């Protein structure tokens, strides 16, 4: 191996770092959605008059029809787990595993919303997965004092087997 102190072809690397701060503006629709969560503890959707769907979480417009949404409607608190994954690997900056996240369609909603699923026995992953594939019923559970964030709520299994 060449001596790096004299090797003219030794590869050089330069360290870099991105640590920029940002302030994201939620906008009119998501602000109201989050304020409904924080103040009224309820999940709201918006109705698209063109495709007759209730979009959850609330959106100011339906991107499929490209029209503004209209009426605000409360949905849930119960719903069906449409699909899920069990996160089993730790990654920096992401929630600690094992956790279940899933898309749930709440009563009165036409679309599914993603959040954590609580109350799943994760001792045997394949067994847990097989049960969750039956698309069990869940109920919205507020996980503490609401902050006006999507993580204010999660879904708890209404049945566990």
């Amino acid at each position, binding site marked *: 191996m060449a001596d790096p102190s004299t090797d003219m072809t030794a590869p050089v690397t330069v360290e870099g770092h991105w640590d920029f701060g940002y302030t994201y503006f939620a906008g009119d629709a998501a602000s109201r959605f989050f304020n409904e969560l924080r103040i009224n503890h309820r999940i709201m959707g918006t109705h698209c008059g063109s495709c007759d769907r209730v979009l959850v979480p609330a959106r100011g417009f339906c991107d499929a029809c490209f029209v503004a949404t209209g009426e605000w409607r409360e949905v849930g608190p119960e719903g069906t787990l449409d699909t899920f*994954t069990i996160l089993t690997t730790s990654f920096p900056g992401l929630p600690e595993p094992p956790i279940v996240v899933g898309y749930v369609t709440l009563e009165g909603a036409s679309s599914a919303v993603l959040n954590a699923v609580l109350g799943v026995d994760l001792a045997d992953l394949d067994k847990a997965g097989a049960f969750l594939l039956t698309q069990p019923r869940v109920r919205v559970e507020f996980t503490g004092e609401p902050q006006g964030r999507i993580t204010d709520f999660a879904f708890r299994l209404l049945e566990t087997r």
Partner: protein
Amino acid sequence: MSRAHELAIIGVGQTPYRRRHSGSTPELVRQAVGDALADAQISAREVDIVIGGFAPDGLSGENSPDKRFLPAAGAVGRWSFRVNTGGTTGIAAAYAAMDLLEAGRGDVAVVVAVERMAQANSVPAVFNSIFDPIYERDTGLSTISMGALRASRMMARWGYTREHWAAVAERNFAHAARNPLAQIRRPYTAQQVLESRMIAWPVSQLDACPVSEGVCAVVVCRAGRVQGSGQPFATVAGRGSLSDTYNMGDRMHRPIGDLVDAITLSRSARRAFTEAGISSARDAQVVEIHAPFTHGETMTYAPLGFCAAADGPDLVASGYGGWGGSTVLNPSGGAQAANPVGATALIRLAEAARQIMGRAGGHQVADVRVAVSTGQGGANQFSTCTVLAG
């Protein structure tokens, strides 16, 4: 109006795909473009258009990398810009170049697509940052969990099991062992896939693509330039591209099709097949499927016309797509053996072209007359399908 058969791919240049490259991005770009021009038997002076694809800036840690990599692809003095649509970046760049050629902006275009994601200290953390910061990012969504959410939906709807997907992985790894450019060349068995570390159930490590770097370049020209010349080329016989809504939850109960029906791919494929005059991807001898995950490959089977969606598990069990069959799936090993994100969708096109031109080396399939390639990107919302013919 169909513009099919007006364009030809005449050259391909690729760096090997590896976990990490020690060269600089401009050096790697120049190498791949130089190889593509040599393969096309043309000089840089003959190029009119240079389109570059580069996926999220955060992966490479270089903001607006177009400033530095496009000149390394020969952009100086030419019509040139950069494209980014996540996983479809590479093919979106190719389509932009093809559209410009069809519009009469020039006769010859270079398309180059780049990935330097190993420069990031935490690839999953960067991938989390591509999601909606208002409604989604805090839930821990990553590209892997996004895939896993679709995989479990396919299990519930169509009866896929982890064993089906392990068989898909085994076949892709067996093919990759023939391809010296592939990153993973070890022929892992289905059993080893099942026993690999679980990442996001039901997706295990060997169901998922590795972290990969590399550059792919393709030279496209107006077909009249090479027809009758005796030079090998692949005719662009048909292509289709369609976008969908962003939120995956919005695609769960739609009358037009479920999240995992991949309707944008179905419709892109139908358009491409009609232009090319074929009825399904079964009419191709080679299909390069853009799928960084095993379940993602099987999600394309119905859209490409291999079978009805519910029959996908049986198609896998039959061993369809292996070496020696009437249609070989991913002879290069596919995105599972190397997934340089910004380049992957262009690699699928480049590999299809190499098969048509008879220049695929150790993974050349015999007598390829029609080859299909696909692209899937964004939150699985951007789809493309391309048919090449000899």
